[in-house]
């Protein structure tokens, strides 16, 4: 009996001190993460008037119903999904290929690593400005294309290719980050497995397919999840590209850019928050689907 209360006391004390240690983190997270999330969920059901007299008016599901008839939401969603569907697979495959190349014993390996990694550590705003020069009608890319006698495009002004331009830029900038993650994972694969496979007479292709890829599966899951979240949240590049309008003809309008426009240009906070919730739901759904897909053939 006595023993038990003593134990209890100690455990509560431990719990208390544990929470005490966590207080700074909890306070910071609470203020900058949890409270904003709660506000978002609550205010998405309100009409918020911030400029001048601040007022909140309960609007029920009005903000969500409005989404259904808002053409720009669908265009933004379509653009974003197209962007995710093209960028994520390409950047993942490119990252694996780059990592495999750098994992072999080629000369100047560390030099290549630095060169490949540079775009990732450069600010995306600077990258976008550099690419806008490259994409200029008389810029580097068009000069190169016309040198090869390929058709040239008005990369910044033509709605058909504007989003492709941003895709190209983003793949180039993000793939190296994931390459580094893959490189780390590749070092973790035990050499003995490859040796055993060689003794059994496996070809390099079989080794890659049966040893390397399965070992990289958890990392690939991580890379794809991060890639999808990152691409769904595309904002800065299309913002700089279009000067904040999402043009030409809504071609570079993404969900986050649309949220920004409603929140800060139209000051329609309630509707913007409803759109934010929608985006969060979309990302969550995609991640859940992906998790179930990866679980089916879990390696360990």
């Amino acid at each position, binding site marked *: 009996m006595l023993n038990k209360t003593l134990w209890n006391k100690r455990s509560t004390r431990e719990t208390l001190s544990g929470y005490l240690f966590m207080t700074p983190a909890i306070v910071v997270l609470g203020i900058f993460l949890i409270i904003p999330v709660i506000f978002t969920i609550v205010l998405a059901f309100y009409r918020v008037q911030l400029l001048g007299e601040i007022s909140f008016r309960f609007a029920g599901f009005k903000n969500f119903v*409005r989404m259904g008839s808002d053409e720009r939401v669908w265009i933004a969603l379509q653009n974003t999904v197209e962007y995710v569907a093209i960028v994520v697979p390409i950047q993942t495959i490119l990252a694996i290929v780059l990592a495999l190349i750098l994992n072999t014993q080629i000369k100047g390996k560390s030099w290549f690593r630095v060169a490949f990694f540079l775009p990732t550590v450069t600010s995306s705003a600077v990258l976008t400005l550099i690419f806008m020069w490259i994409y200029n009608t*008389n810029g580097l890319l068009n000069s190169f294309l016309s040198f090869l006698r390929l058709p040239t495009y008005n990369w910044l*002004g033509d709605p058909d290719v504007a989003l492709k331009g941003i895709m190209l830029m983003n793949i180039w900038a993000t793939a190296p980050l994931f390459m580094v993650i893959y490189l780390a994972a590749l070092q973790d694969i035990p050499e003995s497995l490859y040796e055993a496979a060689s003794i059994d007479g496996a070809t390099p292709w079989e080794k890659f397919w049966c040893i390397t890829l399965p070992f990289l599966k958890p990392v690939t899951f991580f890379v794809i999840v991060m890639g999808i979240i990152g691409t769904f949240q595309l904002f800065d590049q299309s913002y700089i590209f279009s000067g904040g309008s999402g043009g030409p*003809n809504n071609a570079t309008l993404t969900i986050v850019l649309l949220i920004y426009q409603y929140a800060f240009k139209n000051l329609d906070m309630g509707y913007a928050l409803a759109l934010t919730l929608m985006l969060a739901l979309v990302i969550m759904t995609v991640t859940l689907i992906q998790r179930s897909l990866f679980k089916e053939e879990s390696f360990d």
Partner: protein
Amino acid sequence: MKKLLSSLAFSALLLLTTACRSRDQNEGTIEITLSGWQSNPIESQLLEKVIDQFEAKYPNIKVKHEVINSQYMDVIKTRLIGDVAPDVFYLDAFEAPLLMKFEVLEPLNSYIKPEFNISDFEPTLINAFKRNEKIYGIPKDFSTLALFYDQTAFAKADIKQPPKTWNELIQYSKKLTRSEPDGKPNRYGFGITPELPRQQFIIQAFGGKLVDRNNYAAFATPESLKGLQLVIEQYRRDRSSAQPSDVGASSGDDMLGQGRVAMLLSGAWSIPYFKETFPNLKFATAEVPTINGRKGTMAYTVAYVMNRKSTHKEAAWKLIEYLTSEAVMKTSGNQGFALPSRRSVLAELQSDRTSLYAPLIAGAKYATTWQAGETLPTILTNFDNQFVSALIGQQSLKDAMQKAQDTANREIYLSN
């Protein structure tokens, strides 16, 4: 009783000291903030100098000048919401209706004294910052659009006079368009900016209008389309006009400066810009060619406004009064980035620099002020988006404008 007296005396003393203290604070220097954007470093230096003069005249007021260059209105709106907005700031006429409607600006009527001579200001400019007879802003300057043309190109194409009518402009554009051997034009006749702020007067040329009485978009009428069709046809059929991204330029001014177009509609800001950035460019200005026999152009204006929640309103007004006074306007007008908003100062300029500024000043009489109710930002986004798609031939102008109008009006309806 004694106790009561002493306590009364004590509280009186206390009151006195606090009163003294607050007066002390009043006598100390106060700081007010002035926010604006910077269109040119020289313009900024000039303003700094004027502010120094102001501080010398009113030693107890210190002015903190702050430049917000990108997304100016987003920053100002957010700060107004957060109660940290500057005391005095620039406001474009186009954004004024929204801020006036939500009453975040201080009405200036009670501050304006007879010696300020408010009737000296161009009435159309004052009206842009007026709502229900209250004046919310004092126009700092303005500019209209005029036709800028490359004299060398005109001489080579053997054109003696700038176009007087829009038909002439289209004819001349064809003559001025010059192609390389492979058929790709390396210079176009006319440079266009496919944005609503530059197109509103064209919408009105055949009797169309941008918005109806309730500030809903109303530009998809046959009359409006007739004007806009001129722009589309020239671009698509004649291929004698270009937008900046077609020729790899960053702006309309850039197109003319680099010699990629021979004609352009632009404002007063271009005159010092061309002189400084493209000193070899030989250019001249003329009034905007008439469309449908009617003169028309756009006018853009910016005012100084006062934050309603400013804690130093008297000082803020003194600053606005000083910056828009006749004496100061004369010195800042000399730089030529914009036209002075006071008629007395403008009149002096008129006789002074007839050649380049005259068409811009002449335009002020018949210009359309770029402003149309608090719904204009929504209309602007939708118009620009669809107009570009009609321009590059994705859909007909009629469909594009109908779509832009419907989308804008639905958004306006839902946000009310």
